[in-house]
């Protein structure tokens, strides 16, 4: 573990708009330097993507970027982060993805020339490696295409590189459905950690070659899958909240490999990472209900440095095209946070307290991601001597925090979830002390038709 201490030890310092290690973009935006910026993400309406539809695809993105940025300028946005999260065919065929990158960069330049609006492009190719089952994690056409798109995008001027990487996911979905904490730990802290290290070293090489920044990863396919499954009452919310705490161990690896933020928006574990690294973080909450529901729409903004909508389809709403409408919503959310900050620290903290209090008691996921809990969990992670031990320790602390709050009447837990405190404690108690023993145990259990141990440097 590279980080041995916290960049932010006081929960009151873990607040929106301010990061100890801000990121300055080429256009002059200082993310984490006192201003919260809107971060817009968008996707296509229901349509096929292939060579025959690419003209229509391009038209969609041209219209999205022109309209959304014009609205941002009209509303005096202090700057904008545009995230281009590709759709799978655009990563599989990098030329298609690069076409769109160029369209977006051109749209951003035109608006800058017209109105002076500052903006920066975050490029997020898909991690298509899981198209192959079991996935090849370090080679093959999906790996090559993904890196080609990163390389081309960085060369074209996409300044922030991100991804929702999937290493370990091939076993994690099943762990979630089985309520299997050991399986989750294996996926996140053994497989995920190894894959992240390999992947992010490669991405850092690309970033260095082109003078751009690695921004950060997210455990979206892990923690958000758990959160959404819990929202759908498929798995217990307390279990999903504990999984969220563990995801921070995995996502941290990107920063150990050189990422500097802003962390990717759908990484709800980002406040824990901000406390550890001091880098700015993107977050999403109520304004991302267009993409998925969450139990922490206000609280999620408590320590954001960019505020995102996750993704919205380019469809017509009464107010205009959806990305433009969401740009407006994000800008107003950011205005409120920025005006609170402009009135001084106490005003900012007051707004943050309201954000936190509105959600914290109502859901375990929200409780675990309050600034106070995040600093607590972050301390546990940096005190650990390995990723496995960090995962076990942070899971145990999360269970303690949740159960403690529930026992004191500070957290609402459904009656059929209470038994899961014991279930999770028992599961953690049964884990081997040594990482080697744990890996051997999990390898003996894991479904080999789903994953290839060698892709993670694991010997069978």
């Amino acid at each position: 573990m590279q980080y041995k201490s916290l960049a932010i030890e006081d929960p009151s310092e873990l607040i929106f708009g301010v990061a100890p290690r801000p990121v300055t973009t080429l256009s002059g935006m200082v993310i984490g330097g006192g201003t919260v910026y809107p971060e817009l993400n968008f996707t296509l309406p229901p349509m096929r993507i292939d060579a025959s539809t690419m003209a229509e695809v391009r038209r969609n993105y041209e219209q999205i970027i022109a309209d959304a940025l014009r609205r941002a300028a009209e509303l005096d946005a202090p700057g904008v982060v545009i995230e281009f999260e590709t759709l799978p065919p655009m990563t599989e065929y990098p030329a298609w993805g690069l076409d769109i990158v160029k369209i977006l960069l051109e749209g951003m330049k035109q608006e800058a020339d017209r109105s002076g609006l500052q903006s920066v492009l975050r490029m997020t190719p898909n991690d298509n490696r899981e198209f192959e089952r079991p996935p090849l994690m370090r080679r093959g056409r999906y790996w090559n295409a993904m890196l080609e798109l990163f390389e081309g995008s960085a060369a074209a001027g996409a300044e922030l590189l991100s991804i929702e990487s999937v290493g370990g996911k091939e076993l994690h979905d099943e762990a979630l459905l089985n309520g299997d904490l050991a399986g989750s730990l294996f996926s996140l802290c053994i497989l995920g950690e190894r894959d992240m290290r390999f992947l992010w070293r490669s991405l850092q090489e690309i970033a260095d070659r082109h003078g751009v920044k690695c921004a950060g990863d997210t455990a979206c396919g892990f923690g958000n899958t758990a959160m959404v499954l819990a929202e759908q009452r498929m798995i217990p919310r307390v279990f999903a909240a504990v999984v969220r705490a563990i995801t921070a161990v995995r996502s941290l690896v990107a920063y150990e490999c050189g990422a500097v933020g802003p962390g990717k928006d759908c990484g709800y574990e980002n406040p824990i990472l901000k406390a550890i690294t001091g880098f700015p973080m993107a977050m999403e909450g109520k304004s991302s209900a267009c993409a998925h529901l969450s139990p922490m729409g206000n609280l999620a903004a408590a320590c954001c440095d960019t505020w995102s909508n996750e993704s919205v389809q380019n469809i017509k709403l009464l107010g205009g095209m959806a990305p433009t409408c969401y740009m407006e919503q994000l800008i107003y959310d950011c205005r409120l946070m920025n005006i609170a900050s402009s009135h001084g620290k106490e005003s900012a903290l007051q707004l943050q307290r309201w954000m936190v209090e509105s959600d914290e008691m109502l859901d375990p996921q929200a409780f675990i991601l309050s600034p106070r809990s995040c600093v607590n969990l972050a301390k546990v992670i940096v005190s650990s001597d390995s990723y496995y031990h960090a995962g076990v320790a942070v899971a145990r602390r999360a269970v303690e925090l949740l159960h403690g709050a529930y026992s004191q009447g500070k957290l609402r837990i459904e009656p059929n979830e209470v038994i899961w405190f014991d279930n999770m404690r028992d599961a953690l108690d049964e884990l081997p002390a040594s990482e080697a023993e744990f890996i051997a145990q999990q390898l003996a259990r894991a479904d080999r038709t789903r994953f290839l141990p060698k892709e993670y440097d694991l010997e069978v």
Partner: protein
Amino acid sequence: MTDLHPLTQAIIDGRRKDAPGLVQQCLDAGESAGSILENRLVPGMMIVGDRFKHNEIFVPEMLIAARAMKEALKVLEPSLVAAGVKPEHTAVIGTVEGDLHDIGKNLVAMMWKGANIEVIDLGVNVPAARFIESIKENRPKLLGLSALLTTTMPAMRDTVKAVRDAGLAIKIMVGGAPITREFAREIGADGYSPDAGSAVDAAVELLKATA
């Protein structure tokens, strides 16, 4: 409330170590394999499915019951084969081409199995031709299609069309985050399920219509 048969209760409780012995006891007592399946095991899973549908339990608890059912079936299987007992219905299921999401699809497959439907799961990123091939090979009465991306909804439409164009007599049920009842109707699907919990009822309704 009437007491349930000990085997049914063992399935509900997820007691996988007890279930095989209880199956053997039933067989030793002269109960037919078909009756054990139909009157002891399936009702247990139906109760579990019902509890899940009413948010009393979660998927992990349902899977514990499913594992007990699996252990019970290991003992019962030879007798079922000998007696020529087969599940009444077969279904093919998969995530359409271009889409990798499979949690919802896997849950539906599991719930269908619990309702004594034989499920052939083709996995993810399945081209229309592969669905057609499997339907011709396995002659199921039900096809389940899943998609999670707005950009793979056209692949769902194409798959339904290809199956229809192939003249295959099969009920098609669709689902996934961006899928709506209106979209299902528009592309010519027979059924739609908004979530895994209601997928069994929707399937049973469709299968009844085919009977």
